[in-house]
């Protein structure tokens, strides 16, 4: 028998069998369930404390359950937002993380090392990368609130547009919002240090003469750019892809039907005339009479989405015996 095991073919086959068993048991398992939501003693105490401060009395058992459910739901929304990668795309979150990381770095430096100029020179991209590496987006309460808010917006706008309340697995199509604009470009390469001055003087002239993009010769007012002066309706993301993220960011403050203040792009400054923006998907456009109906519909959509998020997630409360989901 021992001689049999010494034969290479037999050893080869045995090794194959072992590997096949390992393969079947290790490689083909289903993906792991999501991590449980843990409601620990500190969280419960904080929820009770907030209640007492607001109402002046202790919460009943049912009220505690409702507080916990609300906290769990918010946790699920925050997790869903992180899973979508909103922390990488939302300008407010990015700014907050950069601020936090800058603060952390400054705190870590000793007095001798802490050169203020040095700190100011730190690159935002680097700071952000370090913040992500430290997972600051998971611990900062402001970021958490923003994540929850954005996730609610995404669920509700998706429900309004498509009727589905399944939480999206990917960020919604970037073209959900759009705007149509014309712009007069002033090149950084051509104008050098005089760029801002020239932009201000051109803006003053356009406003003074009540010039609009419909006027003859509009496209010759600025410096040439191989991007049209009159752009077709475009999403902020597509505009960012064409002219840089700072340009898309600057459009937030641009008025409709008037010249904007100079907006920076990757190539220079732009005087922008927004012709129209897509309607906002939120309730602002609703009439007063329809607001309660909209609010009720939104709440129903949100609850249906939360039901889906709650599925398969184990909630562990320290003050209750733990019963895993079926």
């Amino acid at each position, binding site marked *: 028998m021992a001689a049999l095991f010494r034969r290479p073919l037999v050893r080869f086959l045995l090794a194959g069998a072992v590997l096949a068993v390992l393969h079947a048991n290790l490689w083909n398992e289903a993906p792991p369930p999501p991590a449980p939501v843990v409601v620990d003693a500190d969280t419960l105490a904080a929820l009770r404390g907030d209640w007492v401060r607001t109402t002046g009395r202790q919460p009943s058992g049912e009220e505690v359950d409702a507080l916990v459910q609300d906290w769990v739901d918010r946790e699920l929304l925050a997790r869903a937002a992180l899973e979508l990668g909103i922390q990488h795309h939302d300008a407010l979150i990015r700014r907050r993380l950069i601020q936090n990381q800058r603060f952390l770095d400054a705190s870590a430096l000793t007095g001798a090392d802490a050169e203020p100029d040095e700190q100011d020179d730190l690159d935002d*991209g680097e700071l952000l990368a370090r913040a992500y590496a430290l997972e600051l987006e998971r611990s900062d309460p402001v970021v958490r609130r923003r994540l929850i808010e954005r996730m609610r917006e995404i669920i509700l706008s998706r429900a309004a547009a498509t009727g589905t309340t399944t939480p999206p*697995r990917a960020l919604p199509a970037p073209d959900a919002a759009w705007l149509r604009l014309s712009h007069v470009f002033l*090149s950084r390469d051509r104008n050098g240090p005089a760029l801002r001055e020239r932009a201000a003087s051109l803006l003053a002239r356009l406003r003074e003469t009540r010039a609009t993009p419909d006027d003859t010769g509009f496209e010759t007012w600025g410096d040439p750019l191989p991007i049209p002066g009159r752009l077709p*309706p475009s*999403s902020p993301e597509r505009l960012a892809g064409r002219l840089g993220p700072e340009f898309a960011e600057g459009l937030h403050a641009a008025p409709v039907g008037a010249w904007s203040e100079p907006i920076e792009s990757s190539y220079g400054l732009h005087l922008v005339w927004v012709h129209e923006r897509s309607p906002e998907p939120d309730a602002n456009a609703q009439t007063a009479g329809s607001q309660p109906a909209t609010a009720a519909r939104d709440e129903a959509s949100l609850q249906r989405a939360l039901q889906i998020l709650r599925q398969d997630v184990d909630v562990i409360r320290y003050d209750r015996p733990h019963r895993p989901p079926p």
Partner: protein
Amino acid sequence: MMRPHALLGALVIGWVVWTGTASGDDAPRCRDHDPERNAYFGDLHVHTAFSLDASTQDTRTRPDQAYRFAKGERLGIQPFRPDGSPMRHVQLSRPLDFAAVTDHAELIGEWNTCNSEDLPGHDSWVCIMYRNWPRAAYYWMNYQASKARRHNFCGEDGRICLEAARAPWQETQEAAAAHQDRSAACSFTTFPAYEWTGGVGSTGNNFHRNVIFRNEKVPALPISFIDAPALEDFRARLSKECRDAGTGCDVLVIPHNSNLGGGLMFSPTRTDGEPLSRADAADRAAYEPLVEIMQHKGDSECHPAFSSEDELCGFEKLATNNFGSRTLPFGDHDPVARQFMRRVLLEGMQIDRAVGANPFQYGFIASTDTHLGAAGLTAENADYPGHGGAGTPVGDELPRGLPDELDFNPGGLAVVWAEENTRDALFDAMMRRETYGTSGPRLLVRFFGGWDLPDDLCASSALVRTGYAAGVPMGGILPAPHKDRGEAEGGGPAFVVSALRDPGTANSPGTPLQRVQIVKGWLDGDALLEQVIEIAGDPENGAGVDTRTCEPYGTGFDQLCGVWRDPNFDPGQHAFYYARVVENPTCRWSQQICNASSVSCDDASTVGEGLEGCCSEEHVPTIQERAWTSPIWHRPGS
């Protein structure tokens, strides 16, 4: 004579018919439709778990996930923990506008067989090897496929594996359909596609081609190299099962990696050794409008050995010259000129002159050839995970040191100038070659040629309108000059290149441009000639990068524009002209990882496991990212 009311009726009917046609299927449907065309950035070379080589490297991405990734979603990649969770994640900083999943048609049925317990052949020794010794299966199964041979477990005529190929092919089509944005936003376009993975000769000279379908009308199964190993038969099958099938199917084919083709990819002969006839050349051109000039496995534009006057031809060159010698210790040879597109385009014009049709009248794109399903992951940074495929697999643990072969790179992007981001508009643009490739960044490049483009066109806000009205865009063929309109009186054709640097993202601003060049190739008798002309920017701008910190220094340009008229133009000579736009130097991915790992080549103790390449003689620590436009052609007598 027609009565007045009858005339009025006819006019009304005519008006209805006319306006009906004008606002029918041909009417623009995307919000950002622009008759002067937008640039759309995408990846037309993406492998997922359906590709056997990717699968044996434990890539688990399915086509659906690859498209999600291309649209901006985070993707988990190998290695995986025993519980199935990924140890690494990747995510694009900017979503793509379009993508095509192009899994290898060869072995796609074998992949399904070996992974499906209920399929016959699942328990064959090859499948047992695949499941237990994937690296051995990678070599053995790909070797068989490169010889156009089926495995025994595929049964008579390969029927079992062909049948098993239906499910993954169906899933590929369904994923493409699911992610095609049919709303007016037109935010993302997909193409059903696959790769025909041919090999020639004992060392597997690369013969690979991606097959991109215009729409959901596709053949029942992908036509693989095993099914049709001769190029002529492959095209005949595509014709029979697609273009001439009467189903609305349309297709184009994009060869890639001639740099690994040993000089055989663009042979002037048919598979049977006969010289290409006019019909052969025309047929090839009709199916192959584009070539992938650069990707994960290097650059195929030009080589310093054959373009010694061109100082930029050393870009992303591979250490070997055919596919087999990537893994075999023998079979490599010195580079040959026909591995690189500069020469291929010249030889195409030679064939055109001889037979009256140009088989190699290619436009350019680039793509990634990712084998992780990570479409468009081209960022040159320390997070680059490698793209797998012909690279070394990561194994069960996080890779130590450099995660890819030293001479590989994150790949490039395909850019298409189209009226809108729809399948038809992009496909039409690819057929007319109005495309360019980049080595990763999103540079914006316009390129027009014509007989009477004004010399001051760069100062005009109507550059694009004038370019289309008075010339042809990239990929076009110059028409014969109208002598009666005084065209060409000022000499040869004029060309304008207008380029913007990549605007970048909030976290990663784009790199300034350094220069714009036009590359001319032409035939003078038997001589194949080439010239590189600087037309804008400053090659001596002194810009560089400190490789110890990867901090760039010096200045560059946000935008560059130049008009150049060919002073040596001879209307009797075939010629091509393409533009090359070059960024300032930056650190290559490998150098960024070396720095992030604190490697100092002066101190051997800092060179950790897997980082030996950082200090090797072959290591090129910097890169000048670039874009290559499709050529504009002059064909005497056009």
